[in-house]
């Protein structure tokens, strides 16, 4: 198992799987309803030109969230292909 890192620290183009996801807070319930939860595979597409928010591809679509949320989500980066 690879080391866990924050979703906010993933570099563009990296794929990862969500391992730890906050249980509290309406923002995270919202993200779950949008399909982001423990076990979900995602790819970090890009960071906005000004450094925030980030864009991830999850379940086949593109989603943005701010770094303030992303840094509370821990992911396991997949081995580079």
């Amino acid at each position, binding site marked *: 198992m690879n080391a866990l890192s924050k979703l906010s620290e993933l570099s563009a183009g990296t794929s990862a799987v969500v391992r730890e996801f906050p249980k509290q807070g*309406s923002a995270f*319930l919202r993200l779950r309803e*949008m399909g982001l*939860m423990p076990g979900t595979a995602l790819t970090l597409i890009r960071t906005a*030109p000004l450094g925030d*928010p980030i864009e991830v591809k999850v379940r086949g679509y*593109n989603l943005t969230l*701010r770094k303030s949320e992303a840094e509370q989500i821990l992911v396991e980066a997949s081995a580079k292909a």
Partner: protein
Amino acid sequence: MSADTRSPASPRTPVYAFVGNPNCGKSTLFNALTGLKQKVGNYPGVTVEKKIGETYSQHGHPIKIIDLPGAYSLAARSPDEAVLRDVLLGRRADTPQPDRIVCILDASNLERNLYLVHQILDLGRPVILALNMMDLAAKSGLEIRVARLEKELGIPIIPCEAANGKGIVELRLAMSRSDLPLAKHAWEIPAPIAPAVSELAASLQENDGKAPFSARAEALLLLTDQDTVRVTGSKPLHPRTSAIFHNWQKRWAGEGTDWAGSLVSSRYDAITELCSRIVVRKANVGPSVSDRIDQVVTHPVWGWTSLAGIMALLFLSIFTLAELPMNFIDGRMAALADWVKSVMQAGDFRDLITDSAIAGVGGVLVFLPQILILFFFMGLLESTGYMARAAFIMDRMMSRVGLNGRSFIPLLSSYACAIPGIMATRTIEDQKDRLTTILVAPLMSCSARLPVYLLMMAALVPGERVPLLTKVSIMLLMYSLGTLGAFGFAWLFKRTLLKGEPPLMIMELPPYRLPRVRDIAFHMIERAWMFLKNAGTVILALSIVLWFLAAYPKAHDGATTTQQLEQSFAGKAGHTLEPVIKPLGFDWQIGIGLISSLAAREVFVSTMGIVFNAEGSDENTAPLRESMLKAKWPDGRPLFTPLVCLTLMIFYVFAMQCMSTLVVVKRETNSWRWPLFQIAYMTGTAWVVCFIVYQTGHALGF
């Protein structure tokens, strides 16, 4: 209560609800089925668009369709989603509970779209699934086994491409069926939560009078609806039910059970499992067209370039394309007034029609071309998907004042006219963000302020022509003052009055789509009509009042218009106002201008024309400038010193002088409280800033 409506013999028109995620092509499908037979309004008490249309079954029987707002979940976080939930559950007294539901899905993004469907199947109503955008799914290398899905769920599945008109006939056919099967919809509620669901469902049925088939759905919703958006028309829970709910919550909190999270996860588990059997990834196609466009428009360099380019195009088209129809409307209204003058006898009634009714309504109509173009552009940006990208790249900047990227386009378009900007704030999910944006939008210098700025600049500078550099720098100063004011107040409101949850930017970046001009045009006309109906009537009333104030009491026979105005109610009001505005360097004559331009800012120019008895027009202010420069205070000091001109411009930057905007704000916020607050804070700021500028300038000897 609605079991009987499912029987084929029922004479009542069946009511269908159209539901789906945002960007799934729901409106296109709705428009294709109903054509022009739709009624657009608002749900009473909330600013959510209510669309009801009519179509015919294959046998020619009428079918009613309610196009519900797009949403990702029934657990409401915004008024849009609350309306969706409440209509589906029959909680709204103003809307019939739909008998049947058509769920529209974006086939190229099935997993997330199925989440809402999964919640809707809980409701125990007959459901038809319309798998839209099958072509796009195929293009992205996905094969969807429709027959398999139909078998798994046991309900009709209609593949369609609404944009190309494919699948409409089949959908109508399915909607015409007298019998629709209920879905095979069994999913396991996570073990720690299941007993709570049954207990809540029982209580909901017993105490809240919920129908047996929807009680379970209500119970499930209760558990994910953490900060339930309560809207007027929805009934509160029975105390017994809420007691049960709070007991369970306490128990789970003690055990560390994340009830809401595990409910969502178990739904997605069921969906992922289903999709593994019905979605086949045939080919791994490379980056899509959308991905390639995004590489440019969200690029650190090209992103800004394209944003600037698109915005430049927007403003260029507003100011150039709108000019012709504006002149035309202006000319027509003038011709109409002349015609009335030629056929009616001179008198007060004739003046009432020409000077107040025609002039007032004309003043609103003249801005219509601009507003239409703005609506069209914003529809274009929204439906192509660019709006979300602009929000994405601007988010960081907007977050500095506590807003999110979604507020950017509404604020920017307020530079042309605040009305479409304010109406576009409906895309902002967070209510406090939306209200903040509405409150500050009129501070962005709109085009109605231009005539005032131009007149004041002409009076400010000696000589016939204003040097370009002076003109540009003064304009720049005014625009930046307004912008600074807007952002400053947004910052202030988000910290005080409208303090809320930490701001979020959870947003889908939908794939780029070719715009559907027909749908955009539909939307544009709807919006424009709404504006005309609302603003038009209020402006008409206000124009009559203002006309009356300027026309009575009558001066002696043979008085000039200037003399008439001076001794009218408006003139007296100007005198009454003088003590208040004297510290700003304004006299009663300017006071009359300020009062009359409460209807719309540009009226200031024509009022000044009457006050100083000068012929002229918006374009040619030279004669008016001459007379204004001759104006003096009673003690002989000149009235329009450069400092006064500058102060007056600053006054117009901040003051709330636009009745149409106020009417629209009232409509969009559902109360007079916010427009009144706007008048108070904006005009108050205008006074304070002008006071400081004038007094400082005066002390420095200007």
